[in-house]
């Protein structure tokens, strides 16, 4: 579904990603883990078109994303739930969700998806008329995920949804993401620093370090790798 091949990205002369290859198949749950500054968000921003690539190729459902304007990519069915939530603070919760449904697919499925979003996150239905900027961090994350779901995505990309949240709230978010994957059949690409929880949910994991993909494999394989156990899971 999504194929990233030998992707390199530079930020003002600085290499952020080098020769990164990643593949997400339809229906999969794929996680990219790695420390701060490894280039995880850059990878997402390049897929969304906000950051230009230096070399390599990205294709989605067989079509190359390069040369496609950033705003067109959501219309293909790629939903990006950005790092730090980035909700529309001056819009109401409901308006935020409506903006998620901006692409045609989202508009057509609107009534159905809105029900679904409210089932997953009942609090959003209570706060429908409230300005999103006045919500708590966890609620804003729910708005951000709901907004992503509202475009009826084929691929949902989540950039550190647990960032800055209390552990209990983060657990709820993980549970909902897993539910979206299992019950709605949405393909998921997740970037996370909470490695244990993230890998547990996923079919396939990648480890990104200082711009290089150093390791990849299914959950079981990664768990047996000494470096992953030591550096990310705190096991010996």
């Amino acid at each position, binding site marked *: 579904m999504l194929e990233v091949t030998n992707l390199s990205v530079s930020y003002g002369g600085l290499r952020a990603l080098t020769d990164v290859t990643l593949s997400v198949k339809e229906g999969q749950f794929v996680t990219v883990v790695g420390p701060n500054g490894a280039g995880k968000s850059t990878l997402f921003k390049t897929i*969304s*078109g*906000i950051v230009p690539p230096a070399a390599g190729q990205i294709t989605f459902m067989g079509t190359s994303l390069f040369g496609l*304007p*950033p*705003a*067109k*990519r*959501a*219309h293909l069915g790629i*939903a*990006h739930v*950005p790092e730090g939530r*980035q*909700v*529309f*603070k*001056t*819009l109401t919760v409901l*308006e935020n969700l*409506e*903006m*998620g449904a*901006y*692409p045609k697919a989202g508009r057509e499925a609107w009534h159905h998806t809105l029900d679904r979003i409210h089932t997953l996150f009942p609090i959003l239905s209570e706060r429908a008329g409230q*300005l999103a*900027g*006045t*919500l*708590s*961090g966890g609620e*804003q994350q729910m708005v951000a995920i709901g*907004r992503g779901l509202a*475009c009826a995505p084929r691929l949902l990309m989540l950039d550190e949804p647990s960032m800055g949240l209390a552990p209990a709230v983060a657990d709820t978010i993980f549970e909902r993401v897993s539910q979206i994957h299992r019950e709605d059949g949405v393909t998921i690409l997740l970037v996370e620093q909470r490695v244990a929880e993230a890998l547990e949910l996923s079919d396939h994991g990648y480890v990104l370090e200082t711009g290089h993909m150093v390791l990849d494999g299914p959950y079981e394989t990664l768990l047996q790798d000494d470096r992953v156990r030591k550096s990310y899971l705190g096991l010996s």
Partner: protein
Amino acid sequence: MDLEILIENVLNALAAGITIGCIYGLMCIGLGLIFGIMRIVNFAQGELLMLGMFSSLYLVTGAGALAFLGPYIGPFVGALLAGPIVFAFGALLHKFLIARVSGLRTAGSIDDGHFGQLVVTLGISLILQNGGLILFGSSPATVRTPLASSAIEIGPIYGDATVFLNKARLIACAVAIIIAVSLYLVLEYTRMGKALRAAADNPTAATYMGIDTDKTYRLAFALGCGITAIAGGLMATYLSFGPFIGLDYVIIMYSGVVLGGMGSILGAFWGGLTVGFVQQCSALVLPPQLQNAAIFVVFLLIILLRPQGLFGRSAERA
């Protein structure tokens, strides 16, 4: 006797304040869209007002395309048509200059592009003023309509005290209110309006939603230009103007937008109304030269109570 005159003066000042205030309100909405909502600093807004006035002038007078409509309807149709003309001008201005210092290009930068916008629009303003001087000349112009010198009389209310409502201003005021309300409804309830607010709020996230932020910004900027131009066309029916008239009004527009609260279209209208009202009512006690000073006294008082200031963001609470 004296009381009658006083009452007449006060009532007429109130009436003039409200009618002129509504037109100022419309003028402020144009800037409210560009500066209040899209957060683009535009110091050329006064010159867009001036372009609106001259567009209307050339459409209506002499052998203008609208001359056949006569002096009663012509000036108002001319004012409305100045809108699309300056809208197109604004869209070009955005495409070639403003887009480079706003929107996605400056999203996340320290100043959100404000410094660049300040320099660019100040430059545009100077070019338009002096270009206007070359093209239109320096002699004061006006779009004459007989309605500007006739009034509806209400009263006598108290003794001989009568309120005179200038017909030109009354029509202009009605047009202003209709446009302001329609724009508010469009921004608040349509998909396009919401996309516009979303793009202004967070251009990067709006792009993730599939909103073409560049196009959205261009639309908003051009719309803001066109609306101020319509206000200019309406004002041209009752005052004389030249290429430098923008200077007098750009400050009034900024006061109005800031007074009303950034980011709110109704607020900008309310702010403009307040400014017009204060300006007209101050004429009761102050000499005409000090009318604008009165505006700034009120402005400072309100800012004292609402200290977010020009670049302050009032909508972020969390």
